[in-house]
């Protein structure tokens, strides 16, 4: 609790320096939350994690609100649809909350959360694949509207549709690694971290999926050179 108190003091000082529209709070009290999140919202990841570890739900909410969009979009882009995405995010944050003590570098909360999301989605993909191999359950649907922005050009939308259709046939691990690298544009090291695998493995997975896509992708709307 002492640590929490010091963090709240730091936070109060920080907020005061930003122009004192926020009230000073004592770290050992429940902050009366103006605007619900209050000054806690200005804390850094590491401080929030420390607070959340000490059972500060408000701090965890800030973490959630800061990273929920990332988690949701990550899940949707890996899955190719928005089915159950809220469940995935819900489960991911609950799991993160329960295991905050295992997070070694509190500044790396985002990547750590991402890895949890990836694992959850991977499990779902594998289960679905297993069921499908048995004939149970429908094939993964690709919801283009969940993936492509409304502003995207028809060509890009067609590209995405085709890429996702092809990705459905790729092994989940390869598919995830490729999506993280080529759609989410993460660095290779981050991909490896998110996939909880070595850099070499991540590269191999990306390469496999990429090779497959290159072999099967047909440029839409553009005539092939003769």
């Amino acid at each position: 609790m002492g640590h929490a108190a010091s963090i709240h003091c730091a936070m109060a000082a920080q907020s005061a320096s930003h122009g004192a529209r926020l009230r000073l709070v004592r770290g050992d009290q429940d902050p009366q939350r103006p605007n619900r999140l209050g000054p806690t919202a200005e804390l850094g990841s590491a401080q929030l994690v420390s607070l959340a570890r000490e059972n500060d739900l408000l701090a965890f909410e800030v973490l959630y609100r800061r990273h929920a969009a990332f988690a949701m979009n990550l899940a949707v882009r890996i899955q190719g649809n928005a089915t159950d995405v809220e469940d995935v995010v819900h489960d991911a944050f609950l799991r993160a909350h329960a295991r905050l003590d295992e997070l070694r570098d509190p500044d790396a909360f985002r990547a750590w959360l991402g890895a949890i999301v990836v694992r959850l989605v991977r499990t779902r993909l594998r289960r679905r694949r297993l069921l499908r191999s048995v004939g149970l359950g429908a094939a993964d649907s690709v919801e283009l509207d969940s993936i492509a922005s409304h502003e995207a050009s028809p060509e890009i939308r067609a590209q995405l549709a085709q890429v996702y259709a092809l990705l459905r046939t790729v092994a989940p691990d390869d598919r995830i690694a490729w999506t993280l690298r080529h759609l989410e544009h993460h660095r290779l090291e981050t991909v490896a971290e998110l996939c909880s695998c070595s850099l070499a493995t991540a590269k191999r997975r990306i390469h496999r999926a990429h090779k497959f896509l290159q072999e099967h992708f047909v440029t839409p709307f553009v005539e092939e050179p003769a």
Partner: protein
Amino acid sequence: MSERSKLPEVPASALRDIATDQRINRVWRRIDGELSGASPRTLRAGAAWLWAPAAAVAVFALGVFVGANWMRAQPGATTALEAEPLQPPAGPTAAPEVLPSPRERRDEPKKPARTRRLPRTPSPLPELQIAPEAPEQPTQPPAPITQTSAHWQQLYDEGEFEQARDAIETQGGFDAVLGQASPEQLFALSDLARSDNRAIALAALREVVNKYPHNPNAPIAAYQLGVMLKKAGDLAGAARAFAIYRALSPDGDFSEDALARQVEAAIEQGELVLARQLAEQYAKEFPTGERLDEFREELEAAAAYVPPTPAPDAGSAEPIRPAEPVDDGSPGDPPDAP
């Protein structure tokens, strides 16, 4: 160069941000509800040194209470896990003194409550005393599975497949785990082993089918077994597994597909008579079946190609085929003998 240009990079701006405020708030309400209810962190952050010993004492007391009652109580109750190992050594009559473990005997020298195990050894196995712990299973498969989920299974459920495999290794490997697994665990094992150890995957599925034919997973296991065996080139085994699926789940969602696959397998094996019989059955059961025309064509083509060598009426020279899969609900043969 041309390859690379075929698969252009998708700009980040082309991707949609689906995380609307509504969605984010909705999920948070759920999380908040769960966390503010009974948060594991709350318990952990609270004085663990207070509740942990209290909980330990409570659990111990409960264990003593339950144990005492159980030892004293009804003879007829069949509780699977505890009583299981005691089953084999039960001799016909004189066994009661031998049954309790040495530790029990030390603790409770004179308790007649040991007899509670007698009813657990019902009637069969009179002359089985040679096998020290061989789980002889004459007719009835081991009934209820109430195992707590194993560590590897938790890892599997969490998607930690490599770790789950490692955990299995530490428990003695797939073979060891296989023998004690519940139907659900067997299913998970088959999934884990599918990629690099197909034999284990097949064994796990067979276990489900053979030992737990009444388990809800059994039909699916049979079906998957068929799929895997077919992939492995064991057409006869696959056909049998599909037949078992149909026997276990005659009105199941895949009975049409299973029958179709049986027809396929028979055609591929060149067993035209059997294939024709199965195709007729398919036509009868699924008059609007998608593959009806295909089968007709294939059979006609096959008949045209292969002159009826043994006998046109397929009578005596025809090898004896396994009986048509019975749709009477009986589990049928095991899918494949090792």
